[in-house]
């Protein structure tokens, strides 16, 4: 890895050619690179899998599910969806196009984007690099120390697909305490995209040039909700019958919980089920427990670090005692595995310690979440919603007011489309600047 200054010069030089490449060529290159990671025999896929099992600590099947989810959204169709959704049409990236009402307009990207990635899940980082290329920027990537390999592997695949793309992605690393190196990299970039803890983001932002762009993707969490309209039939039907609607919802939500071992900003920490019936809450808790147990065989939980493992035991201890003391809570877990389900009749904020720790709460009306979730205002990211279309707008407004950028069916929460506005922001537009030429006569 060359020194950052030399690398930055190299990237800026390579960007000259990228700046004149048509957007279709860039999309084709990313698509080809992504296909490598989805192809079972491809050595790059094998390397990516081992990067996630060793670095991110996911199990083998968990890593495979993660790689499939990440690179499926970097195929041509998904990328074009993103371009059309945000820009109305990508041609303005290639040159001036006619403006409605006269004149012309085009979109110009930054010369160099610095991406500072977080360690919890690898997906946002890869999408970040792709977005940088779509706006025709050179990209300097600082991966997390915890999982440093996936970004360079993606860069390798890009280089093989199209040398111009590969030349515009470089990787750099520095220690958290090495503020000098961090400052230099941040100061050299035209735009900085930072993922991670608020403290990290604050520090990076303080180093940004006054005219530089700074995009932050900070602390977020996600939830799930089930509307009363889906709770039809006698409660007993929820027991063991894997075809009943609640069992199917539980199976889908289990996937949302399990992907990335619940460490992502789109991982649901709790399910709010719209009922006043305590028994129904506990039956759904049992259904979630069965679903997570079944999933453990298919996607085993990865290795937890010491503090995380301890936190799981302690959370179980607290709730087991509460259950034994007669409180209206129930607890299910597998002592040999990480997953835990805690159900409580009244709604609260989920103190999940991640690694597949899911809270199930009952609430008589989902609209009541406006008050229950108020302390999380600004932190909500996604909601997996099981309910009829006619409730979507009201609940969407409620969750949106708390910061949510995404509401989707259970099972899709951790597989956002490329067009998803991460943290509610337009990923490409935030990097682009628009040039309007008004009619000159």
């Amino acid at each position: 890895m060359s020194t950052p200054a030399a690398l930055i010069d190299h990237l800026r030089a390579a960007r000259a050619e990228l700046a004149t490449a048509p957007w279709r060529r860039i999309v084709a290159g990313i698509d080809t690179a992504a296909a490598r990671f989805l192809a079972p025999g491809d050595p790059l896929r094998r390397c990516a899998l081992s990067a996630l099992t060793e670095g991110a600590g996911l199990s083998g099947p968990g890593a495979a599910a993660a790689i499939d989810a990440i690179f499926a959204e970097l195929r041509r169709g998904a990328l074009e969806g993103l371009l059309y959704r945000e820009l109305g049409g990508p041609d303005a990236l290639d040159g001036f196009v006619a403006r409605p009402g006269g004149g012309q307009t085009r979109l110009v990207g930054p010369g160099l984007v610095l991406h500072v990635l977080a360690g919890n899940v690898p997906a946002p980082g890869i999408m970040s690099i792709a977005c940088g290329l779509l706006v025709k920027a050179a990209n300097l990537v600082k991966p997390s120390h915890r999982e440093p390999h996936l970004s360079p592997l993606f860069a390798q695949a890009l280089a093989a697909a199209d040398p111009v793309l590969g030349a515009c992605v470089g990787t750099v690393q520095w220690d958290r305490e090495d503020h000098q190196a961090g400052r230099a990299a941040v100061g050299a970039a035209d735009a900085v995209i930072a993922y991670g803890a608020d403290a990290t983001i604050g520090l990076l932002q303080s180093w940004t040039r006054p005219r530089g762009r700074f995009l932050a993707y900070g602390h977020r969490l996600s939830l799930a909700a089930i509307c009363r309209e889906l709770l039809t039939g006698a409660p007993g039907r929820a027991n063991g019958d894997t075809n009943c609607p609640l069992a199917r919802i539980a199976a889908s939500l289990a996937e949302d919980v399990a992907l990335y071992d619940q460490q992502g900003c789109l991982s649901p920490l709790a399910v709010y089920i719209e009922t006043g019936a305590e028994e129904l809450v506990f039956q759904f808790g049992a259904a979630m427990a069965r679903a997570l147990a079944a999933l453990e065989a298919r996607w085993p939980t990865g290795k937890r670090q010491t503090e995380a493992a301890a936190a799981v035991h302690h959370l179980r201890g607290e709730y087991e005692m509460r259950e034994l003391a007669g409180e209206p809570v129930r607890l299910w877990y597998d002592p040999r595995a990480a997953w835990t389900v805690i159900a409580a009749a009244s709604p609260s904020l989920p103190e999940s310690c991640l690694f597949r720790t899911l809270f199930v709460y009952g609430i008589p009306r989902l609209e009541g979440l406006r008050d229950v979730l108020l302390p999380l205002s600004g932190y909500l990211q996604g909601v997996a919603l099981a309910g009829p279309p006619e409730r979507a707008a009201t609940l969407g407004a409620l969750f949106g007011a708390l910061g949510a950028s995404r509401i989707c069916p259970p099972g899709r929460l951790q597989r956002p489309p490329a067009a998803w506005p991460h943290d509610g922001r337009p990923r490409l537009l935030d990097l682009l600047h628009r040039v309007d030429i008004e009619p000159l006569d």
Partner: protein
Amino acid sequence: MPRPSLSSEPALEEAARQAEAAQLDRQITALIDVGFAAPPDEDAFNALALAVFAHQFRYNPVYGAYCARRDRTPQTVRHWREVPAVPTRAFKGTDLCAFPPSNARVTYLTSGTTLPGRRGRHLLESTALYDASLLPNFNRHVLPDRSPGERLRLYALFPPTAVLPHSSLAHMIARCLTEFGDAQSGYSLDAAGLHAAGLSERLAEAERAGLPVTLLGAATSFIEFLDWLAAKNQRFRLPEGSRVMDTGGFKGQGRQVGPDDLRALYGDYLGIPPGRAVNEYGMTELGSQFYDGCLADAVFGPPVGSAGEGRVIRSKVVPPWVRTIAVDPQTLEPRPPGEEGLLRHVDLANRGSVLAVQTEDVGRLCPPELFPLPRFELLGRAASAEPRGCSIAVSEILAAAERQGDR
């Protein structure tokens, strides 16, 4: 002993419980009185531990149910290692006492948590057993060179019990001041905070008079005092025999000071060498405490096998009425000495609550042949899991909001 159904004579049941508890306390106190010099009696400890377990199984119904569903009962448990350990956090879940909660005369609370109404509680009927464990252990490891009956000058960098009535550490320090402190011993901290100037004056007097002092308190308060001294460019050469006992986390007002760095500061600003700085490790949920062995070693002789070892390993002494093991964080299976794990303590001084307590603290047992009494290295205290990347724990959100005064 079979688990009895609800007695039709609650008064008789309570009388029986009190008698059994008193009997156990006498036996535990007798074991404590044997002292530190003799090698620990494994059979005596095990027998007493099993008796305490049986008592708690019967009279702490929630704990009894917790054990029963694991098929660990007085019939199936044959060794203290098999006694089910309760995570410290479970003390937040419910009152874990082997007596009717209404009998509680003392309530110790854990440090505040962000969700209201959810502080851990450790209830005691009396502090007798707590004090019986506290005083000889403190004396042995913090004041090993004290003559019997001798009174020393103690200054506390911690508030009195009137300010923190539910702090077990406040009680501990208060008892030590009463038991070992002379008439001029006292507190340098109250509800208004640290009285650095006053403490500084007292230390100056002690220095002039050649009077050794013992400073006890929270590491955070020591850091605050040392920062104050640094700002005033004041330093002391406290008389020979002076010492420090510190406890708790090592974060000073947002800045991190590691234990080694803190001990270096004691040397720079107080003239107290690292060998006379004893760190204490304890918790609200546990009746007994653990101290660094360094000062006792200097007085009673160095540990077997440590001569010429080079690096001094700071290790905590497990008193003879406690057993400590390190367990695998994923499986909770015991780890052998030398391997890191989560510390679990089996403490006879917890006769009134839960014998075996599982912590989130990371440590490793020292090789048993090195020391006459078992010891462990404390490698890390439990911290709420740091948010990794963009995911976040709810507790972190609430803590951040509190810090900003949003609530």
